[in-house]
């Protein structure tokens, strides 16, 4: 059977696709997860295992109280609704029998506040003013008479009926709120309303974007940290930790790769030490280095440096030994062989190693920020996660991801610039690399233009002088 043409075009063993298709697939690789997230979030019949309560009701003799915005499971919600209906039936039955309960004023006052989410949702009441009974009382009237129509959320026919019934009773006594003038017999409860929702840990894209915009722009009171401050603090920790790891790790790694002496002296212990997870040292680090950034920097350092020594020594050993032999036959002395052959020879691979290790350092950063006094972006994630404000957590997680990604792409582009002789650094998509590095490239082009202009004028003036 012949392979269909489209299979032949798109799936070829170890062949690069044409530029256009590569770009398309790169775009898809980002759009696909995003589309999936949107589908799960916005198509109500896909997944949505919860019901997000829009209008709630308190039940008699049940202490668990749900408020608007709470999530309950899809299975439980009908039960909840049914319980409230049963209570309403009992009230109606008692009323019909002429033996209504009495002393229900306080309950009725609470019952009137069932509409608070509607009022707040439409901006008829402020968030902090949700218990303004006078306004709510008029809302009952407006909704009953149809002067106002609720859309956030839209009220069910059943609930509108209940509102009208209740208002008939309320308006018979008073047209304005007064606790004393509330009916003494129980009113009907608004039946809970809700809509299908995903669990709180999967907020919808727009919620995440909104929360992110709010948090990143938020002005904070004196003494607290803005998101920018947290970001800078996190970057500082990771770079300091990584810098120290480089300062210690690279020379030792190169020495281990060049001299068997150092390899046998250091590597066995380093190999052993790296199996002790860096976070297990956190309490020790805090005890020794006390609070502040020092133990965090140290944790990133410990997490990175041992890997670095091993990776750098391996890279050093991978240098083509015949280059060293060639250098020897050209009269290079041992020290020159290290400075003039080993170091320049391994530089491109070393650079790539560091790029990968920097990616790892981000992992250590997150752990580091949790030890001692929590700090930086991770503290924010921790705190908001505890309050289950996951819509505020995701933007920060994405921020970390984007930072790492942009940095990596930038470094890979820089690799091509620094080591043109070493081939591709393995930036996985030139398209993305181009987007990410656009500002840097523009700057570089500017500098180059200025340099070549200076060179040209220098040459011109030299020419004028020479004859």
């Amino acid at each position, binding site marked *: 059977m012949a392979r269909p043409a489209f299979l032949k075009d798109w799936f070829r063993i170890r062949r690069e696709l044409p530029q256009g298709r590569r770009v398309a697939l790169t775009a898809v690789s980002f759009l696909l997860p995003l589309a999936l997230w949107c589908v799960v979030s916005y198509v109500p019949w896909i997944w949505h295992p919860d019901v997000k309560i829009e209008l709630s009701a308190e039940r008699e003799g049940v202490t668990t109280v749900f408020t608007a915005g709470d999530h309950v499971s899809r299975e439980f919600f009908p039960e909840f609704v049914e319980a409230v209906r049963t209570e309403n039936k009992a009230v109606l039955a008692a009323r019909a029998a002429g033996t209504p309960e009495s002393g229900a004023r306080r309950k009725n006052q609470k019952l009137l506040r069932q509409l608070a989410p509607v009022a707040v949702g439409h901006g008829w009441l402020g968030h902090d003013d949700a218990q303004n009974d006078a306004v709510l009382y008029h809302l009952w009237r407006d909704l009953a008479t149809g002067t106002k129509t609720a859309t956030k959320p839209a009220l069910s026919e059943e609930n509108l009926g209940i509102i009208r019934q209740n208002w008939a009773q309320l308006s018979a006594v008073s047209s304005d709120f007064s606790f004393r003038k509330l009916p003494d017999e129980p009113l009907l409860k608004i039946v809970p309303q809700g809509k299908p929702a995903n669990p709180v840990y999967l907020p919808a894209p727009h919620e995440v974007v909104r929360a992110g915009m709010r948090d990143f722009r938020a002005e904070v009171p004196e003494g607290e940290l803005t998101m920018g401050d947290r970001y800078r603090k996190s970057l500082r920790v990771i770079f300091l930790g990584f810098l120290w790891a480089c300062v210690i790790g690279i020379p030792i790694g190169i020495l281990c790769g060049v001299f068997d002496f150092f390899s046998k002296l250091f590597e066995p212990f380093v190999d052993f030490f790296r199996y002790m997870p860096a976070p297990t040292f956190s309490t020790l680090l805090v005890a020794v280095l006390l609070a502040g950034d020092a133990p965090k920097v140290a944790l990133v350092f410990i997490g990175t440096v041992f890997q670095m020594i091993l990776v750098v020594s391996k890279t050093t050993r991978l240098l*083509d030994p*015949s*280059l060293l*032999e*060639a*250098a*020897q*036959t*050209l*009269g*290079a*002395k041992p020290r*020159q062989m290290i400075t*003039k*052959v080993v170091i*320049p*020879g391994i*530089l491109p691979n070393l650079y790539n190693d560091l790029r990968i290790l920097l990616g790892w350092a981000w992992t250590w950063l997150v752990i580091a920020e949790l030890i001692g006094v929590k700090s930086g972006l991770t503290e924010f994630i921790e705190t908001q996660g505890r309050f289950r404000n996951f819509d505020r957590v995701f933007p920060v997680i994405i921020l970390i991801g984007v930072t790492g990604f942009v940095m990596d792409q930038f470094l890979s582009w820089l690799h091509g610039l620094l*080591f*043109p*002789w*070493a*081939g591709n650094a393995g930036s996985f998509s030139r398209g993305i690399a181009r987007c990410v590095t656009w500002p840097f490239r523009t700057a570089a082009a500017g500098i180059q233009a200025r340099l070549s202009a200076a060179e040209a004028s220098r040459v011109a003036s030299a020419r004028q002088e020479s004859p």
Partner: protein
Amino acid sequence: MSTLELPGYRDQSPEVAARFERLRQRPVALEVRGLTKRFETPRGVVTALDDVSFQVHKRELMCVIGPSGCGKSTLVRILAGLETPSSGEVRVYGEPVSGPGSDRGMVFQGYTLFPWLSVKENVMFGPRMAGKSAFSAEREAREWIDLVGLSKFENAYPHQLSGGMKQRVAIARALANQPRVLFMDEPFGALDAQTRCKMQSYLLDIWKNVDITIVFITHDLDEAVFLSDRILVLDANPGRVHEVVEVPVPRPRSEAQLFDPTFMATRKHIDGIMHPPGSGQKETPVMRLAVSDPDVV
């Protein structure tokens, strides 16, 4: 098939004989005496070289030829000081060799150019190591690059060059150190036939203009005869000197000489040493079926 009457490879014309006489008068550039090299391997001791002795005179071009694995690379590595012999000694103009040094240049089969340096910087490497200033090293490098005909490419990087160009850079780089002996280990082995021919002529051109003694390793018979004054033929397992052949082909050499009777005679002689009649590999037989295929018969 008509048998061509070839002269004996030992029959030298008077001019050639006089040339070899003059050659023998020259001082000995490289002296190898009783060189033995054994490798300890997990499967036992491998004797790569066994009691190898020979001499190379000043400004001679000697080829070392032998089947693959006979120890040619091992020999040249010992000469260059990159390996230590198990016994025996090597002297360059009377001085014993005890390690790599800039008095002996080396050109490897794998180019071994420094990929992070431009052509010019590669050639400058030796002089810079010897402590010359960047300025004088650069001036020297330019001359050598000019000699191998790569002036246009002095700022190119190795990855931008073809194999033949790379090897020319490697030669220039080795010569820039002004070594007294140059070792070349199958330098043209990785090149295609046409480029190899060109490179051989280049090499002779360069050698004509440079005061240098060359020991050239190859397993290509034509290359050996074309280039050398004398050919050292090695036996394999263990590597031993079988014979040192004086090539009776007059100089200057040209490609036209490939069909010279003297050339062919020398070639045939060495070929006979390397592939003795009767020891040659039989042709690979067509695979025979154990059970005949009934559908085919």
